[in-house]
């Protein structure tokens, strides 16, 4: 183990880890927004909308995230979409995780007993009102864990944008392995930083789940 090397590279890697955090947060925000929309489509009364939602989930979950990133970044200009690597990466990752998150949201809504909706309707709440005030608050608790699992997968998934030269953690690791020929030292530093993010997030999700879902 080359300890001196580790000491020298830590600042650069912390910087790169921050890019990974930014990337994760941006794609998480986009992912949640798109997921809410897709889940609404999936739960719609209109068959065509249900089909559109199902198609979104099926296509994004049925193909590799890596190709989705390449398609947007390299293929985008052919159809008039010019994005820098960071934006292309964040958008592709967000659209990808949205397909998984939509299923987590839908699963939460479907796990709420039908009687809740029926009771709310019979008390005079409209359909939208029942969903908003009665079903969703109960469903939200059930979504914490599955959405948390999706978010953790997203953090690890951000490594994929190293392939389009976004200078995040894995890209930096790859470059330093190439220039120092010390794969184990570089891996150690990179792994510690990823694990702080991944297990920190896991811990946060556990806490939230226990705090809110525990009472349900």
């Amino acid at each position, binding site marked *: 183990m080359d300890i001196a090397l580790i000491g020298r590279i830590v600042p650069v890697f912390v910087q790169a880890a921050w890019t990974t955090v930014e990337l994760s947060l941006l794609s998480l925000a986009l992912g949640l927004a798109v997921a809410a929309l897709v889940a609404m489509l999936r739960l719609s009364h209109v068959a065509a909308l249900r089909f559109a939602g199902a198609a979104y989930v099926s296509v994004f979950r049925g193909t590799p995230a*890596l190709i989705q990133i390449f398609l947007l970044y390299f293929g985008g200009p*052919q159809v008039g979409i010019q994005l820098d690597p960071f934006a292309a990466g964040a958008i592709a990752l967000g659209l990808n995780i949205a397909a998984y998150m939509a299923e987590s949201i839908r699963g939460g809504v479907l796990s709420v007993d039908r009687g809740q909706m029926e009771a709310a309707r019979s008390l005079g709440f409209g359909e939208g009102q029942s969903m908003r005030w009665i079903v969703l608050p109960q469903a939200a608790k059930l979504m914490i864990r599955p959405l948390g699992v999706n978010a953790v997968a997203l953090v690890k998934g*951000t490594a*994929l944008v190293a392939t389009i030269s976004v200078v995040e953690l894995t890209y930096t690791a790859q470059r330093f392995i190439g220039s120092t020929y010390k794969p184990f030292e570089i*891996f150690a530093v990179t792994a510690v930083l*990823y694990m702080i993010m991944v297990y920190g997030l896991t811990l946060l999700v556990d806490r939230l789940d226990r705090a809110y879902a525990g009472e349900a």
Partner: protein
Amino acid sequence: MQGLDFSIVPEYWPLIGKGLWWTVVISTASAVLSVLAGIGFALLVLYAPPVVRYPVRLFMWLFMGTPLLLQLFLIYFGLVQIGIDIPAIWSGIVALSLHFAVYNADIFRAGIASLDKGQTEAARSLGFGAWRTRIYIVVPQAVRGTVPAVGNMMIALLKESSIVSMIGIAELVHSAQLVISETYRPFEFYLTAAALYYGLNLILEAVLRGIERKVELSR
């Protein structure tokens, strides 16, 4: 903007088809190895003495907390570093197998833990040794309940096998990249590759459903 033209795709089918074939080969090999290694890790974590158990747990913790792409780079460059010079394709298969073995091990461990203790007691009282009981009585029963969860992992493995293109293995994505470097038509060929993965995925899902049904019936 140059517009899209899919009419040139069939011309490159031989190369794309070859990539498709290697994706199937690499995914299948990694899937089998990841299941076998997963069972091994699960048994070690549950039953091995502490000197073995803790390093295995540390390894699992390390691999669950880091991205596959990083692990691939570690194995690809690391093996050379410690004097093991094997073809890139093996680095790819080893990385995919280990990455998914860790997740499979977690699933198997839960499956084994949830199995009725009476099975072990019955086998032991019939004269089976501890490890013979685990391998011949516990594992075969425990594995059945884990088929859906492990199946989901295999679906993820098929898609993530695309990552090995990064170390120059000529699977589907890499073949598409080769064609694109010649034709400058990324959209058409990445979309073609995506469609082929989608097709493979449908086939895999059908196979997994078949296995699930068989396992259900034999219970």
